[in-house]
């Protein structure tokens, strides 16, 4: 059985049976078409009011989705889209509960005066239809109310269990079209779910969608799991787990739901990372108290030692083009951030801020490095790849381990409470203004945001 859900770009929609529903959704609209907002300044497009009424349907019939009938699904889709935008501080969305539901015939011919009267700048409409195969087809349309113009449209046919993906892809289309940024909602997060008292925390590998839905635990917590990373193709997760008291690197295969030891070593292994193309795995290994960074082919093969300093060299994050690696080292006497070529040459320190700098993660856009700055408190900060333009994004007692959204505009991290040691997964955008805690079933740490889903 196929494991990656098949999302069909609905060229299918052009079929005769649905002629009244929609013209075939097309490739992404051309650059700059009909949009009069500036994307370089967040505050401009952030103020756009977006109406997101319930999606229409050709017939309210039962579906196999968790949302219910096509009518209920149409409401749920609009709610997920609204939640995506609202929870991430994007635009000023108004959800379906407070809006009239358009008829199917209006989906491609919006009643502009009605929406203008509600002071909506933008309108997201759509439809949902149950297919005889059990799949559901979702169409998504974006209109500029003032211009009386369609700005974008797309459609997908998805298995019933994947209906939320259609909503995330619709939110992605709206976000990308209006902001000029790359999409990110259709992505997943791996993290460590934590329970229990401070001196005996149980730490389990868990995964969830970018909005917290479809949550699932992968390990039982019998062995402590730490520092997961999604593979670029979402087929597996690299993570650390204790085996007979020693930390080892495992790969959890999401297709077979099995896990395997990445490599056998009598020494403790830490900090596993993928290269952007998934062909390499970075890891760190301690030999007699000296930790260095290595890389090995993810398919197996000889490891290459990248660092040789007598101190602790650990972690590592590839630049998006795979040519360089940012990592941390205490060779200067305290944790600092260094950059090297992917073959280990040209190692040089880039963090000169006072205090310590740790857990660097290269933005998927390549223009920023997020890291943990330690000067008493632990804070999430960003700098450019040459170590300039330091900017703090958080200011709490203990925030650490940033991970980037697929589009490099939002950072997740984990926050530890003073005293109780309770942890939570948080996120903040690059403006530092939109900070929020993610809703996880139990405490959470070590979030790792995967790329946009294939």
């Amino acid at each position: 059985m196929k494991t990656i859900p098949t999302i069909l770009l609905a060229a299918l929609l052009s079929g005769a049976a649905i002629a009244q529903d929609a013209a075939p959704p097309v490739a992404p609209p051309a650059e700059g078409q009909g949009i009069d907002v500036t994307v370089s300044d967040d505050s401009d497009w952030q103020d756009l009011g977006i109406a997101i009424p319930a999606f229409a349907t050709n017939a309210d019939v039962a579906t196999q989705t968790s949302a219910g009938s096509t009518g209920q699904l149409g409401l749920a889709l609009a709610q997920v889209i609204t939640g995506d935008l609202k929870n991430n501080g994007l635009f000023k969305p108004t959800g379906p509960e407070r809006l009239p539901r358009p008829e199917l015939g209006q989906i491609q011919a919006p009643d502009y005066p009605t929406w203008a009267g509600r002071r909506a700048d933008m309108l997201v409409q759509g439809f949902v239809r149950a297919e005889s195969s059990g799949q559901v087809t979702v169409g998504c349309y974006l209109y500029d109310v003032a211009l009386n113009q369609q700005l974008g449209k797309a459609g997908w046919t998805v298995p019933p269990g994947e209906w939320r993906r259609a909503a995330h892809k619709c939110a992605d289309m709206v976000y990308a079209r209006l902001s000029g940024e790359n999409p990110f909602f259709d992505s997943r997060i791996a993290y460590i779910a934590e329970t229990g008292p401070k001196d005996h925390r149980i730490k389990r590998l868990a995964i969830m969608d970018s909005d917290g839905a479809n949550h699932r635990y992968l390990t039982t917590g019998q062995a402590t799991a730490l520092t997961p990373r999604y593979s670029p193709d979402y087929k597996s997760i690299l993570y650390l787990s204790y085996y007979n008291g020693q930390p080892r690197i495992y790969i959890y295969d999401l297709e077979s739901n099995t896990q395997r030891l990445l490599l056998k070593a009598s020494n403790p292994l830490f900090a596993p990372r993928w290269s952007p193309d998934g062909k390499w795995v970075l890891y760190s290994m301690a030999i007699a108290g000296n930790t260095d960074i290595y890389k090995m082919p993810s398919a197996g093969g000889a490891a290459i030692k990248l660092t040789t300093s007598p101190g602790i060299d650990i972690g590592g994050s590839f630049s998006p083009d795979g040519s360089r690696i940012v990592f941390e080292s205490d060779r200067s006497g305290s944790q600092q951030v260094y950059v090297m070529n992917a073959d280990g040459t040209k190692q040089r320190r880039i963090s000169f801020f006072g205090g310590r700098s740790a857990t660097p993660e290269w933005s998927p856009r390549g223009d920023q490095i997020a890291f943990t700055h330690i000067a008493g408190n632990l804070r999430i900060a960003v700098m450019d790849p040459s170590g300039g333009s330091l900017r703090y994004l958080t200011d709490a007692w203990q925030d650490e381990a940033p991970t980037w959204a697929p589009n490099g505009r939002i950072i997740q991290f984990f926050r530890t409470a003073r005293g109780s040691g309770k942890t939570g997964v948080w996120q903040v955008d690059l403006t530092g203004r939109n900070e929020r805690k993610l809703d996880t079933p139990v405490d959470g740490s070590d979030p790792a945001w995967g790329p946009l889903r294939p």
Partner: protein
Amino acid sequence: MRPNRSLATIAMLSAGTLVLAACSSKPPKQLPPDPGGAVSTNTSQGTMQQGIVPGSQADFAQQMMGQDTIYFDTDKYNIDAADEMALQAQAAWLARYPNKRATIEGHCDERGTREYNLALGERRANASKNYLASLGIDPARLTTVSYGKERPIALGSDEASWAKNRRAVTVTID
């Protein structure tokens, strides 16, 4: 999938058999077994009990009177004079029972990042191991493990607690 469903699945889990899910779009019926169990860090020191067997971990803990643990300054892993005293006491006991092996657990306080602290805990455990080796204990008898900041012994978020947590604990293997 709903979280409560997976919790129920886990609650029903009995350790052992691995069941592969036929279709990966569904959650596995059972979670695969975790790779190995956690090692207990319980040193149960200082409890005077009847029937402590000479040469046992209980004997070691009792004899050491707290010197089974050495402490470090923030971000440091050097062995100071107090540590030397403790390690000499440990070495004397280990010399008396030459067939006993020991694990040295390295720990850190909570005020550092997780991965670095794993490596720092390893470095502290190794500093302890190296000093014991310099006192004539065969290093083959000594293994190290790091728990980073994951296993604090003092639960406060204050200097006194952090000082207690920056430690290397020697645990003999019965």
